[in-house]
């Protein structure tokens, strides 16, 4: 009869120290989030005065800098158009990959390039749209819809990858049951696969929208910048990220304060979208 040797003191210490270290580093990882939210609220709430959301930036360096109305309108319009392009496109590609391409060579190539697109820096997408649409002066130089195209390119891989994962979760037995009843493939896709995967598709789309809403670099060269509120997507457009970027580079307290206010607005918007994405995900019957 042998007895188990007790764990030696040294090993116990190493265990405790290492586990403590991982905990400490996890706390360190979360700290920036807490600090950022703290400062956003502390500095940003002050800027949220009565006419902050209802006036346009005045463009004055000194004196009343104005609000962020044009930035909010621009962000919403451009992101909406970008979503209208990227979400159907992305879900379509995902449908191809899951329903038709499967593990084929072409599908794998497409999948690989979608991954590649995920890694392309957003500034490069901006440059690309600048070269193709702005330099060539298609419908004027800078325009809101060109910003939307750049954002759509950015959203496309996110939508495709998340949709692919969800579509893969739709049980084959559902598809087979419908096919066995004599349904054509397109009907299986639209009546069985898409409705089953809907909550997941919405989640992926919302995450892509949240990502696009916060992007600055692609808009810099495509939608440019303007002070006034613009509802016409063929004109230059302001946006929240660009407004923040412009204000933060000014050594002027009131402009920096507007940057905090705009940043708080933007983060609130993005966090709401992310939260909505999580709630929808929770309602999903898949996974």
């Amino acid at each position, binding site marked *: 009869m042998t007895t188990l040797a007790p764990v030696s003191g040294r090993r116990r210490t190493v265990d405790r120290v290492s586990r403590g270290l991982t905990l400490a580093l996890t706390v360190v*990882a979360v700290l920036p989030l807490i*600090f950022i939210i703290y400062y956003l609220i502390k500095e940003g709430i002050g800027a949220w005065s009565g006419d902050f959301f209802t006036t346009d930036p005045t463009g004055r360096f000194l004196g009343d800098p104005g609000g962020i109305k044009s930035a909010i309108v621009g962000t919403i319009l451009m992101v909406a158009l970008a979503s209208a392009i990227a979400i159907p496109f992305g879900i379509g590609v995902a449908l191809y990959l*899951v329903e038709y391409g499967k593990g084929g060579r072409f599908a794998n190539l497409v999948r690989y390039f979608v991954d590649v697109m995920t*890694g392309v820096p957003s500034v490069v997408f901006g440059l690309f749209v600048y070269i193709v649409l702005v*330099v060539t002066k298609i419908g004027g130089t800078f325009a809101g819809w060109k910003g939307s195209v750049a954002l759509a390119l950015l959203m496309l891989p996110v939508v495709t990858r998340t949709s692919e994962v969800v579509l893969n979760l739709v049980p084959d037995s559902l*598809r087979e049951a419908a096919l066995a009843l004599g349904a054509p493939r397109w009907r299986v896709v639209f009546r069985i696969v898409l409705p089953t995967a809907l909550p997941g598709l919405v989640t992926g789309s919302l995450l892509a929208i949240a990502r696009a809403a916060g992007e600055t670099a692609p808009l810099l060269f495509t939608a440019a910048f303007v002070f006034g509120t613009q509802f016409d997507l063929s004109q230059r457009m302001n946006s929240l990220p660009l407004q923040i970027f412009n204000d933060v580079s000014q050594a002027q307290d009131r402009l920096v304060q507007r940057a905090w206010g705009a940043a708080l607005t933007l983060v609130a918007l993005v966090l709401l979208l992310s939260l909505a994405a999580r709630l929808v995900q929770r309602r999903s019957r898949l996974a």
Partner: protein
Amino acid sequence: MEAGTLRARGGPAIGDRSSRSRALDPLLRWVLTGLAALILLLIGFFFVRLFIEAKPAFDKFGYIGFVFDNNWDVSKEIFGAWPLVVGTLITSAIALVIGVPVAIATALYISELCPRGARQPLTILIELLAAVPSVVYGLWGIIVLAPKLHGVEQWLSDTFSFLPLVGGPVSIPNCFVAGLIMAIMILPIVSAISREVMATVPAQDKEAALALGATRWEMIRIAVLPYSRSGISGAAMLGLGRAIGETIAVTIVIGNAPNVPDSIFSQGYTLAAVIANEFNEAASDPTHRAALIAAGLVLFVLTLIINAIARYYVNRASRGNKRTVPTGMAG
């Protein structure tokens, strides 16, 4: 209704076999295939257009010259991107050195050590870091973080001046702060992928280690880490790809000085930052514009290579024990 026909509410029979219905099948197939092919075309077009537009800069300075010449002088129209390349490398290195260990520690803590109830909230908190827009990191970095860190950085700079690239005066916008911000920004993705990879470690391996009397940490060291090493390397590479391409936050906090930095605490510039920062003045100057697009192309190629390597590692790590992917419909 005939017997044996299944009808959805109000719609035609599911098994409708009219010629119109049959014609839609190949149509859907070709539309979806077309969309998929469009992605490939888009990326090909992307690359070719960037290359054509960047060509004047490469013609003038040479491919090697553009990347390795240490002279970025807008007023003299000389564009050698070496200071930007060095700035990109230094800041990304700082981001990796700080960000990756923290990310791995969080992944280990969340997937192996923390109480079950804390798992979900911690995961969400880490993911929220990824939801904060780049420009907000920049704003926070330059207004709050950089001034607050100045004293600490000066102390680090004086104490560790024997190391290369450390020492001398500390400027308020600098490469170190840029790297630190990047570290925060890459943390969520590195952590998420590491966690995914750690989740594929077979339970038998872990249980075997524990059954042999290993402590929790020894179990991590002998079962979890070796098994997920390749995946974690891939995650770090993906983080590197993100860091290299990070633009706006870096533009705001790095100082945008087109010189090879003397130390990590002096101002610098990166390939991505130069594009965002000099774009406006370059719009009217073809050579300058071509140089910026060339910088974008270098960035593009760099991230392509890094991501390709990263994908290889991550896929190798999760192959075999990944969730079984349904094969889709037959035929």
